[in-house]
C-alpha cells in the first residue's frame, strides 16, 4: 500500500503520464506579502484567468486542466522565495513556474532553483537589465521588457531625428543609472555622443550647479532620466532659468501632465518615450479583465495573462506537460510564424497546435521574445507640442 502510494506520488510529481482528465500543476510565485502585496492578487488572477481559459476549453493535452499552486515570493526576501520555489518543484512537482515578480527574488529563484532543476520560469514583471545576462540555459523568460530596452528605443528615436550629441542627467538610483547606461551604450552604437552623464539627487531645492556642469559640455540637448515631481523637474527649471538648455529628452519617469502644466510652452519640442502603447490586444484584455473583476489598468496584469497563456500553449505544443518540452516550445509559440493568437483565443491556439499547426501568440501586450527570452515591449514616442504631450508613433 505504502509503495503504491509512493509510486503514484512520484508519477504525479513527474507529470509525465498523459491520462485524460488529469491535472497539470503550475506554480504561481508572487509577492503575496511584502511591498507589492497590493498588486500581486490581480497579477495572479490574470495568470489564473489564462489557465482557466485553457482548462475550460477541453483542448489542453486532450482534456487536462491546469491547477495553479500559489506560493509567496515576498518580493524582497530571497531566502524565503527560493525555499518556496524549491517546495513547488520538489514537493508539488509543478510543470513550470509563473513568476516571480520583483527582480531580486526572480534572479535568486532562477539561479538557485528553476534553472538547476530544469524548470521553465516566466516572470511578468521583473524588469532589471541584469536578468538579461544570467546563465539560464534558456529556462528563464519574461513578458515585461527590461529597463534597458527604453534606452535603446530612445537612442533609435534620437538617431532617426538626427540628434548626435546629448548631455545626460539621471536620478541617482538603480532606475536612473540603469537607464543612463543602457541609453549611453545604445546611443554610442548608433554613432551618437554622450558628452556627460551626471547623476542628480532628488529632493533638493536648487539644481543650478548641476545644470551649470551639464551646460559646460556645450551639448544642445539634455536628456533627463529622473522624476517629474522631483529632481527632474528642478533640472528643467534651472535649465530654463539659466538659458542653458531648451531642448529636452525625457524618459518615462518624466512623462506626465503635471510637467507640461508647470512649464507650458517652454517645454515645446521635448521628446520622450514611455512604455505601453495601446494595442488591439490590450483593449480586448481590458474588457476580459473587467468581467473577471481584475483591475484592468493595474500594472503587469496583461503581462501576467500572457505569461499564463504562453505556458498553456507551450505544453500543448510539447504534447505533454513535460518540463523540458515546455522549454523547447515556448519560444516557438510566442514568435512568428504561425496563426496569430490574441487574448481570449487560447482555445483556438490549442486547437491549431493539436492539429499540428504553428501559432504566434500576440496576447495583451504584443508578445515577441528575443534571443534571451524576453519581450521587447512597445514604447510610445512623444513630443511636446503647444505645451502638451502628443504621441508621435509607437515603437
Amino acid at each position, binding site marked *: 500500500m505504502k509503495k503504491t502510494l509512493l509510486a503514484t506520488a512520484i508519477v504525479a510529481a513527474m507529470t509525465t503520464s498523459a491520462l485524460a482528465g488529469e491535472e497539470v500543476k503550475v506554480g504561481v510565485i508572487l509577492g503575496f506579502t511584502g511591498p507589492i502585496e497590493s498588486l500581486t492578487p490581480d497579477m495572479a488572477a490574470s495568470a489564473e484567468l489564462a489557465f482557466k481559459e485553457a482548462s475550460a476549453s477541453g483542448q489542453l493535452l486532450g482534456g487536462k486542466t491546469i491547477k495553479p499552486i500559489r506560493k509567496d515570493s515576498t518580493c524582497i526576501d530571497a531566502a524565503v522565495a527560493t525555499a518556496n520555489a524549491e517546495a513547488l518543484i520538489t514537493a508539488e512537482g509543478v510543470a513550470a513556474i509563473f513568476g516571480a515578480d520583483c527582480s531580486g527574488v526572480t534572479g535568486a529563484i532562477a539561479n538557485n532553483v528553476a534553472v538547476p532543476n530544469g524548470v521553465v520560469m516566466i516572470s511578468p514583471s521583473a524588469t532589471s537589465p541584469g536578468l538579461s545576462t544570467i546563465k539560464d540555459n534558456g529556462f528563464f523568460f519574461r513578458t515585461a521588457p527590461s529597463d534597458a530596452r527604453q534606452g535603446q528605443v530612445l537612442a533609435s528615436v534620437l538617431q532617426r531625428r538626427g540628434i548626435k550629441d546629448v548631455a545626460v542627467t539621471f536620478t*541617482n538610483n538603480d532606475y536612473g543609472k540603469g537607464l543612463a547606461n543602457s541609453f549611453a551604450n545604445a546611443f554610442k552604437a548608433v554613432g551618437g555622443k554622450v558628452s*556627460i552623464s*551626471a*547623476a*542628480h*539627487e532628488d*529632493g*533638493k*531645492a*536648487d539644481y*543650478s*550647479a*548641476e545644470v*551649470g*556642469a551639464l*551646460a*559646460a*559640455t*556645450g551639448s544642445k540637448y539634455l536628456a533627463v532620466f529622473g522624476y517629474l*515631481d522631483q529632481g527632474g*523637474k*528642478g533640472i528643467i*527649471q534651472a535649465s530654463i*532659468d*539659466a*538659458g*542653458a538648455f*531648451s531642448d529636452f529628452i525625457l524618459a518615462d519617469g518624466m512623462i506626465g501632465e503635471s510637467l507640461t502644466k*508647470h512649464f507650458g510652452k517652454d517645454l515645446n519640442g521635448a521628446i520622450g518615450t514611455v512604455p505601453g502603447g495601446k494595442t488591439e490586444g490590450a483593449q480586448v484584455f481590458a474588457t476580459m479583465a473587467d468581467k473577471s473583476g481584475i483591475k484592468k489598468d493595474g500594472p503587469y496584469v496583461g503581462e501576467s495573462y500572457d505569461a499564463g497563456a504562453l505556458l498553456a500553449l507551450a505544453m500543448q505544443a510539447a504534447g505533454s506537460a513535460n518540463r523540458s518540452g515546455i522549454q523547447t516550445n515556448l519560444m516557438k509559440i510566442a514568435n512568428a510564424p504561425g496563426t496569430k493568437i490574441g487574448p481570449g483565443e487560447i482555445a483556438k491556439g490549442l486547437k491549431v497546435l493539436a492539429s499540428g499547426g504553428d501559432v504566434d501568440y500576440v496576447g495583451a501586450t504584443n508578445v515577441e521574445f528575443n534571443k534571451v527570452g524576453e519581450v521587447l515591449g512597445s514604447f510610445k514616442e512623444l513630443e511636446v507640442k503647444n505645451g502638451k504631450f502628443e504621441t508621435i508613433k509607437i515603437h
Partner: protein
Amino acid sequence: MDILNALVLLFNYVIVPSVAYGSQLALGALGVTLVYGTLRFANFAHGELMAFGAMITILCTWWLQSLGVSIAPLPTALLALGPAIAVTVAIVLITDRTIYRFYREKRSAPAIYIIASIGVMFVMNGLIRFIIGPGDRAFGDGQRYIIKARDFRDMTGLSEGLGIKTSQGITVLVTLFLVAALFWFLQKTRTGKSMRAYADNRDLALLSGINPERVVMYSWIITAVLATIAGALYGLDKSFKPFTYLQLLLPLFAAAIVGGIGKPVGAIVGGFVIAFSEVTITYPYKKFLTYLMPEGMQPSGLVQLLSTDYKFAVSFIILVIVLMVRPTGIMKGKTV
C-alpha cells in the same frame, strides 16, 4: 568678444547664483549667530524656523492670490511677508516661554539647550508637514525674470546668455536693506546696545541693569524676522519643499562658524564665503576656458574640481578647516 562671452558665462552660472544663495545663507546665518550670541547655544531648529516662516508666507500668498491682490511685476509673497513675520514671531516666543525659559532658569549647560532645540526641530518639522504636506509648493507669481537669458543673447549678440530672476534681484536688495537695518539697530539703538553688551559679557550686563528676559525676547524677535524673510526668499528663488530646509542647516552653521560665531558681520561674510566656494569649486570651467584659451589649447575634460554631488561636502570641509586652523572664525567670534 570671447572675453565678454567668458565673463557673461561666469556671471550666469557662478556669480549671480552665488550672490543670491550667499544672501539667503547670510540672512539665515545672522539668525543662528544672534541666538548663539545672546542665548549661547547652537539653534538646530533654525532651518525649520525658516521653513515655518516660508510656509506661513505661502499660506498668506495663496489667500491674497485668491482675493485677487497683486503687486505685479513683484511677487505677491512680498506682501504676505508681514503677516507671516507676525505669526513666526509668535511661535518663536511661545517656544521660548514653554521650552527654553525652563532651561534658562535652571542655567542649563549649552549641550542641553542643543538637545532641546533638536526636539523643537523635530516637532516643528512634523508641524510643517502636517499643515502644508511634504511636497513641492509653488507660490511665485509676477514677472519671473528681470532679464531672460535668451533675450540677453538677442540684445547683445553674444553667444552666451545671462538670466537674472526677479527673485534673485529681490533677494539681494532685501538682504542689503535688512543688514543695514540690523546694524543700525545694534549700533545706534539702546536695545541694540544692550543686546551687544549682553552678548559680550553677560554678568557685566546684568550688573549694569540690563533686563535679560528683554534681551532674549528681542533676539528671538529679530531671529524670527530674519528667518521668515530668508526662508521665504529661498523658497521663492529655488523651490519650497519642507525637507530642503533641513539640508540648509549645514551650510548655515558653516557660514556662522566660518565668519566667527556671535559676530553679525561674520555671518554675512561666512554666508558669501560658503556660497561662493560651493559654486566655484563644483563648477566645470571647460566652456569658460574654451573662450579664453587659444585655439588648440582648449581643455577636453570638464575642468571641474569636485562633482556637484559634493556641494554640501564643500561647506563641511571648509567648516572642518576653519575649526582646525582658526576656531574663532574670520571675524574672531567665540570659540565653539
